[in-house]
Structure formats: C-alpha cells, structure tokens
C-alpha cells in the first residue's frame, strides 16, 4: 500500500508540473470565463446558457486532460526506461499500474475540481446563486475519467500514445452511443449484426451512465439508485481494465 502511495504521489507530482498541461488548463479557464460573455448575448437565459456552457467546458477539458495524461502512462515509462528504477526495487508491476492510475486520477480530479470552482464563480457572478450540483456532475465525470484512464493505461502497456488516443476517442464516441446501438440491434439488425452489436454493447463502457449534465441543467430529479448503480458499474469496469493492464504489462519484456 505504501509503495502504491509513493508511486501515486510521484505520478501526481510529475503530472501537475507538466507545462503542456498548464496550457490546456489555462484554455479551460478561459473557456469558462467566456461563458460570462456568451451568456450576456442571450435574452433572459443568461444563467441557463452559462451553466450549459460551463458544464460542457468542464467535461470537454476534463476529457482532453485525461487523454493527454493517460495515453503515455506506461509507454513512456518503458520507452524512457524510468521503469528500470522502480522495478529493480521491491516494487511489482501491479503496484506501478495502480500507482499510475491513482496518480493520474487525482491529477485530473484536482483540475476538474478547480474548474468546478471557476464554474461556481461564473454562475454566481451572473446571478445563478450557488449551483452546487456541479460536484455531483464532477463525481460522475470522475467515474468516467477513471474508466478512460484504466483503458488508456491498458493501451499504453502495448501501444504508442497516438494509437492509445485514437482507441480512446473511438471508445468515448461509441460509449456515449451504446443505447442507440442496443436499440438498433434489437429492432433492425440481422442475426450476425445483432450478435456483433450486442457484444459491443456489453464489452464497451456505457459512458452515458455518467452523464447527468442534462438533468442537472434542466433541474430534473436524479435517482439515488441510478447513481449507486453507475458508481458500482464504474468501479467494476475500472477494476477489469486495471487488471488487464497489469496482466499485459506483466507479460512484457523490458
């Protein structure tokens, strides 16, 4: 546990000192600030526009940061041989994978939290009061981020960062369309396509489970059971992805 914590701290420290990350974060905050200008263009819907824009910004920049940090997690360790320092010590590959995962999750979580504070400031400034449901959105987005980081770490054990980014973007795209795919498989697809699409439905992460942005913006109620189910689903999916990453990494020669 202590070793995982040490690797987590090191990964976190490395991540938050990255200058490219600073660039992305600054753009994120500018995007958030531009919600003030944009909302002023709408007639009587300032708060609604600012909330929509701000929440979308947190999601979008959260995704960019997740992909940026996760794509080279293990790949860079192997290519740059920094992993030689850790693995020649009493450290296992599982501990490296877990330490990397938590380090990156904390880094993205911290940035999303800071963006949420900026969002609160913007909404408050426009006159929308304290929109504290943003933290629920962030919690679920963090679950999605966890799944994506697990998959990115898995990809980074056997492929290049560019390929890992492409696979992840495809998964994000498919992961948000799974209910459509399931509907299509049930109603319109032929037998072979039905098997493929149904397999895809169960294999790919259903990222829409973590999307409560629309209900929050429109002030619809959110079911606690649904939330608990989404959290359980995320934890299971993350566990499988991280275990698979550890399995592939274990098989790799250095």
């Amino acid at each position, binding site marked *: 546990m202590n070793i995982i914590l040490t690797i987590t701290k090191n990964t976190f420290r490395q991540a938050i000192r990255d200058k490219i990350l600073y660039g992305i974060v600054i753009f994120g905050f500018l995007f958030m600030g531009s919600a003030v200008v944009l909302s002023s263009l709408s007639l009587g819907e300032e708060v609604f526009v600012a909330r929509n824009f701000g929440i979308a910004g947190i999601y979008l920049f959260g995704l960019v940061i997740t992909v940026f940090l996760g794509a080279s997690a293990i790949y860079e360790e192997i290519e740059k041989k920094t992993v030689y320092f*850790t693995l020649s010590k009493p450290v296992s590959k599982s501990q490296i994978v877990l330490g990397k995962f938590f380090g990156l999750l904390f880094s993205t979580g911290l940035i999303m939290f800071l963006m949420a504070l900026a969002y609160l400031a913007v909404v408050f400034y426009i006159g929308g009061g304290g929109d504290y449901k943003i933290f629920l959105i962030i919690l679920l987005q963090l679950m999605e981020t966890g799944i994506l980081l697990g998959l990115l770490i898995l990809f980074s054990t056997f492929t290049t960062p560019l390929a890992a980014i492409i696979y992840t973007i495809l998964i994000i795209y498919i992961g948000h369309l799974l209910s459509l795919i399931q509907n299509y498989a049930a109603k319109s697809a032929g037998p072979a396509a039905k098997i493929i699409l149904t397999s895809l439905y169960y294999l790919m992460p259903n990222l829409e489970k973590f999307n409560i942005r629309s209900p929050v913006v429109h002030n619809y109620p959110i079911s606690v059971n649904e939330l608990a189910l989404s959290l359980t689903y995320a934890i299971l999916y993350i566990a499988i992805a991280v275990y698979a990453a550890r399995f592939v990494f274990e098989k790799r020669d250095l």
Partner: protein
Amino acid sequence: MIEIKNISKTYNGTDNVIDRLSLSIRSGSVFGFLGPNGAGKTTAIKIAVGLNSPDEGEVLIGNGSPFRSETRENIGFMPEEPHFYEQLTGLEFMKFTNDLFDRNRRSSSEEIDEILEKTGVYKARNKKIRDYSKGMKQRLGFAQALVNNPNYIFLDEPLEGLDPIGRIEIKKILANLKNKGKTIFFNSHILADVENICDQIGIIHRGRLIYSGPVAEFKKNKSLEEQFVETIRGFSRQ
C-alpha cells in the same frame, strides 16, 4: 554471493541474446562484465536484477531469487544511460526511490544528503533533473543505487559520460564500497577502469561467456585492452 546458473534468453523467439550463461561472483568482490556492443551484457544485468526473466536457468543473489521483493530490498541497480522523471528535482527523486524500500532499509534525510554529497549531486539537489547535464544524471543514477545501503550493487556502464574527475570520484566510491564488503557487478566499455577496480572479470561475446576469472590471468602480460580485442577477434573469426 551472486550465482547466475545456465541462463538463456531469446527475444522474439529467435535471437539468442544470452546462451547458457553461468557465473559465480563471491561476496565482497568487484566483478567487471565486458563484451562488445550487443554481446548481451545489458540483457544479463537486467535478468540478474529481476527486470526480465530468463527463458531457462536461474539467478540467485544471496541465495534469493531477484524476483522476490525480499531479495530486491538488498539490491542497488543503476541502468545504462539513465532516464529520469524530468519534472522532479534530484532530491525529490532520491526520496522517491528511497520510499520504495521497506522502512528498515530506507536512508534518513541526512544519509540521503551524504550520498548526494559523495556522488557530487548535493549542490544541484534542488534543481529539476531536466536541467542536469549527462554527467550529473549519471551521478544521480549512481546515487539512487546506494539509497538502500544494498549489499549487492549492479551498475550498467556507470562511468559512461563522466569526465575524468567524475570517473575518479566514482571509482573511489566503488573502492570504498568494496572495502565495506559490498558485492559489485558492473558492465563497462572502459577497460582501463575495469583493470583498476575489478577482482574478476567475465567476457561475453554473442551471448556466450568466453572467459571468467581474475584480470591478471586473462591479460597474460598484455594490456587488458589488447588482450580483450585479440580475444574477441579470435572468437569472431570462428
């Protein structure tokens, strides 16, 4: 004692990088592992410290497998041309590597400072590693191999990239470590340095061990470099 017993390693199932390599290195001695580029030195050292597993054979370090964490608590390893987490400072990196060991093997802050002082990194300890020169990185790589006060020290090309003063300093530290009873296994291209420090040498060529024993016995009244080149050429002709 370091025992390498009949290890073989192939990459991609075909290239035999290490072919039935056996070595026995007694405790408290300095062993130089020599060979031309691509001979299998780095592969052998990586197997010895448990970074890669051999296809056949086994390695025992103080009677323990390097794949066991108890054994690795007592190993120091410096990789060839070390690359670091560039965003960290030298001191942060030392503390990071120190924290990977069991509490009773870790160095105190004062001991870390002492290691950094000895290896010549102390003055630059608060600078980011990305601003270090090649020689400084080499020194830091050496420093982290000593952080757990190991009995078995494996160094892959430790003198590479160092200026003459740096080489003298590192050789002095190696001599001190030897006097303290540490067992040192190192790969090197710089034969003059090997000649100065080592009790025994091993020569590997195309994955096979072609000599293992005292330096003087190998040299036969020639310089180590001359004898080395002659031996390798002789084997290359075969």
